[in-house]
């Protein structure tokens, strides 16, 4: 019987009649203050920059041209590919990808370990992993910077012990940014994988072991394919915010570690800014993210179809 009358299908709760008024605030808030702004941003990316920060309503491809092509100092030379911004984007993608992989390498064993604890200690582990997720990202990034700076609590004891003579050059390097991204988003990797492992039927592993598969073969052949949706979700949750990250590169990195977030931010600072160019860079970033999310949606759909 229940099959014919799924929860919420009846009119007993009466909310069917007032769906539109219930959703109106959501539509208005997100529609006006997010969808409309994004559309406007798309338009801005085709406008002409004004010098004191702002725009002139003349449509042009100048911003995208500036992003991808170099026409010389005076704009009259034959165009060649401009590598500056592409390099920044490429570095961002690379950094985000590496951060995602490191998060996965540490996050999966951790998630597995937590999910296989008895209920009481599992709750404690989960609680401990969740707390950093709730702690202000700025504070966590500042704390990390404090820890790894030249005269910080990491380098000092190592030097005092004579293990190193000079402080490890961590701050203002790619490594620091990498560490920052990893540190920022690690909980995002652990939680969805944990959720997947918790639903994993351990009898599958027992069946594999029974059929002569070793522990690690079982992990590779059975466990990973089954918990894949959780792994993909974790990777997306780490990769996407890493790509547009601002705090970790800004606070931990230096000039050589410039990432998309900082590039965009710079375009909206004071009179040096270039709003149309910033809007164009944001559009390109959003396109990248949408492509990733579309792959994710397709993977999900395929998973659902099975």
């Amino acid at each position, binding site marked *: 019987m229940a099959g014919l009358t799924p*929860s*919420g299908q*009846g009119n*007993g*709760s009466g*909310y*069917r009649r007032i*769906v539109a008024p*219930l*959703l109106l*605030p*959501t*539509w208005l*808030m*997100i529609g006006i*203050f*997010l*969808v*409309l*702004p*994004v559309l*406007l*941003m798309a338009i801005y990316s085709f406008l002409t920059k004004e010098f004191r920060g*702002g725009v002139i309503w003349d449509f042009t491809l100048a911003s995208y041209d500036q992003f991808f092509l170099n026409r010389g100092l005076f704009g009259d030379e034959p165009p060649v590919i401009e590598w500056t911004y592409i390099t920044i984007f490429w570095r961002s993608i690379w950094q985000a990808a590496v951060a995602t992989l490191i998060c996965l390498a540490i996050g999966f*064993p*951790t998630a597995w*370990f937590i999910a*296989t604890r008895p209920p009481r200690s599992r709750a404690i582990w989960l*609680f*401990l*992993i969740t*707390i*950093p997720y*709730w*702690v*202000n*990202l*700025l*504070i966590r990034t*500042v704390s*990390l*910077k*404090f820890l790894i700076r030249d*005269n910080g609590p990491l380098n000092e004891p190592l030097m005092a012990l004579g293990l190193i003579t000079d402080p490890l050059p961590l701050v203002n390097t790619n490594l620091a940014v990498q560490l920052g991204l990893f540190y920022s988003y690690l909980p995002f990797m*652990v939680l969805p994988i944990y959720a997947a492992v918790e639903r994993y039927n351990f009898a599958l*592993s027992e069946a*594999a072991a029974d059929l002569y598969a070793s*522990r690690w073969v079982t992990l590779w052949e059975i466990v990973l394919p089954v918990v894949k949706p959780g792994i993909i979700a974790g990777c997306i949750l780490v990769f996407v*915010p890493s790509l547009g990250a*601002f*705090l970790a590169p800004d606070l931990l990195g230096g000039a050589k570690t410039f990432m998309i*977030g900082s590039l*965009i931010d710079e375009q*909206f600072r004071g009179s040096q800014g270039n709003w149309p160019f910033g*809007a164009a860079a*944001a559009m390109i*970033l*959003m396109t990248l*993210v949408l492509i990733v*999310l579309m792959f994710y949606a397709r993977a999900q759909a395929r998973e659902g179809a099975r």
Partner: protein
Amino acid sequence: MKGVRHYPGFLTMAVACLVILYAPLIVVTVYSFNASTSITTWGGFSWRWYGDVFTGPEAPRFKAAAWNSITIAVLAASAATTIAVAASLAMIRGGRFRGKSATFALINLPLMVPEIVTAVATLIFFSAIGLVTGYMTILIAHIVFCIPFAYLPITARLQGIEDSYEQAARDLYATQWQAFRLVLLPLMLPGVISGFLLAFIISLDDFIITNFVKGAGMETLPTAIFGSVKQGIKPNIMAISTMMLAVSVLFVTLSYLVNRIGQRTRS
């Protein structure tokens, strides 16, 4: 013979994970009690930097920023929670309707769009419509990105409540509003509180979007801390950080307890 759940090395990884997550926080907490003016050397235990936060030269700035942060977080979380409750009623109890999946996408849109893009778009929008950036613009932006965070736990809770409770109430002569107020809302409450707490923390946390739409002279705690850190990490920042850390821990514990109580009231 160990079971199939056991993998050698996984314990080490899990412990490493905790160490990495907690080491910076613990170090900052410890150094916030450092009596020395220098952040490098340890000068003994002291509460002086906590005193400095409330009475020192930067105190007025941080107080104003904290007040802004807290009032914005309360208002934004309240508004987002109210909107999310209405939305989840429509999405979970409203049956099938046209535009349902589009609405679902819309609710989740703030999670999909990278923060920096939202920040840029919102700034452009406010400047285009001529809205002066300040308290109001921060509040509006915060309500928008808090909606999906409030929506998640509320929906999860509502999905777990059979509609037979409301039907029983209607059957016993309650109007729809009475059935909501007297039966459904009390049952949803743990989810609503979780949603509010999550939205509150998310609002309190936000730096990037706030930094874009705050306008000159307006500060929230994160933007004030960021401004200060740009000049170098000072001990008073560590004291503030430690206090915010304590607030976060308090909130997780609170939301954890609310969920525990929620599970007990569920038959």
